[in-house]
């Protein structure tokens, strides 16, 4: 093996050193720097390739799959259940299995967190109903003239970064839920409005689904808080979740 061949092989795969290459290195120990340099360059490539992954991607994939049935099982259980019922059972099953990482701000005992989560669900639903009663227009399609800087600042106030406009967002405003200042958004999804409330400083152990007063809801742990999404169907929640987390990151 000559120098040219060695260099070419190193550029093809810096991690692979076969016997022929090792022999070459024994004979030319000064060329170890070529290997080091090629490996360092690959490390830089690798770091650059590791672009940030959208928050909640795994959850959205699992949620979507819960609406779909593996082909092998179609024959067995789609006969007996309506699509909606099957989807709902699937969603509840998967949501129960989900173990999303919790940002440990302080170690609050598990039982206490569960109680807080239950209290939060109630407070969120109550807040949405209050809003619907006092300012029903926020649930409708509207052109809300909020300056970009003001909007960004609203997100920053709850520990979130708005990277681009949230698709289908028709309303954004500050609010108070369960004694905490939060951010209240409304997204006009295909089947109607969906409310998203960002609550900084709150904690839950894992993603949770709930159903109250005819509404479907999800609470998702994020860095530094909780995002609650409430709508009329789980399909709506999946769609709103995707639109929100494509635009917003935490921490």
């Amino acid at each position, binding site marked *: 093996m000559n120098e040219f061949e060695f260099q*070419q092989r190193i*550029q*093809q*795969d810096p991690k692979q050193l076969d016997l022929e290459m090792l022999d070459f290195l024994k004979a030319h120990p000064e060329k170890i720097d070529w290997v080091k340099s*090629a490996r360092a*360059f*690959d490390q*830089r*490539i*690798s*770091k*650059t*390739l*590791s*672009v*940030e*992954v*959208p928050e909640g*991607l*795994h959850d*959205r*994939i*699992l949620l*979507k*799959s819960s609406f*779909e*049935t*593996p*082909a*092998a*099982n179609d024959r067995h259980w789609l006969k007996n259940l309506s699509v909606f019922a099957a989807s709902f059972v699937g969603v509840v*099953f*998967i949501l129960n*299995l989900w173990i999303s990482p919790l940002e440990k701000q302080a170690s609050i005992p598990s039982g206490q967190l569960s109680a807080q989560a239950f209290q939060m669900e109630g407070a969120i639903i109550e807040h949405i109903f209050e809003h619907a009663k006092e300012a029903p227009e926020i649930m409708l399609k509207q052109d809300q003239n909020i300056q970009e800087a003001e909007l960004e600042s609203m997100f920053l106030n709850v520990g979130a970064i708005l*990277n681009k406009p949230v698709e289908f967002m028709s309303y954004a405003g500050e609010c108070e839920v369960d004694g905490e200042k939060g951010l209240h958004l409304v997204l006009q999804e295909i089947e109607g409005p969906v409310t998203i409330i960002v609550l900084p400083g709150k904690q839950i152990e894992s993603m949770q689904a709930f159903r109250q007063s005819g509404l479907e809801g999800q609470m998702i742990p994020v860095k530094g808080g909780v995002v609650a999404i409430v709508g009329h169907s789980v399909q709506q929640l999946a769609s709103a979740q*995707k639109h929100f987390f*494509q635009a917003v990151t935490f921490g």
Partner: protein
Amino acid sequence: MPPSNSFFEQLVKAYANDLFRYAFWLSKDRDIAEDLVQETFSRAWKSIDKLKDENAAKAWLITILRRENARRFEKYQPDLVELEDALMADKAQYEPDEKMERQLLYQAILSLEPQFKEPLLLQVQWGFSGEEIAEQLDLKLATVNTRLFRARQLLKKRLTQSESAKRLIG
């Protein structure tokens, strides 16, 4: 044996992030990348019974994603010059020099032609061997090796050009 939810969940946990990154470097668009990953897992879930060997999951998922990406081009040919500078520019965790260097490399990788970019992604990001890349891309091993060599050469060349240009400007 019927496919299990937990097995599918494990696949998502193990591969969704890297599939997103692979899709991003192919599509140069985060939204398209997420759609591709969603579609990949949707297809995987629907035909999970066909996955006989769990060890083959990695290559199987990549194959589905590449097909989905190809299907996208059958429908339309979007303008793919969007460079998400903000993505890199906003990351405060890097020191200025490192940030600049990553930004240059980021753009150099984005600008790589797909025939060079894909083997490189499969090798560096997915840890595929030359033989595995050849099988995945349906190429001869010699062609894969040439492309890997060319990919790194092109990256270095474009980095040097960009660095010289930046020095001239600034």
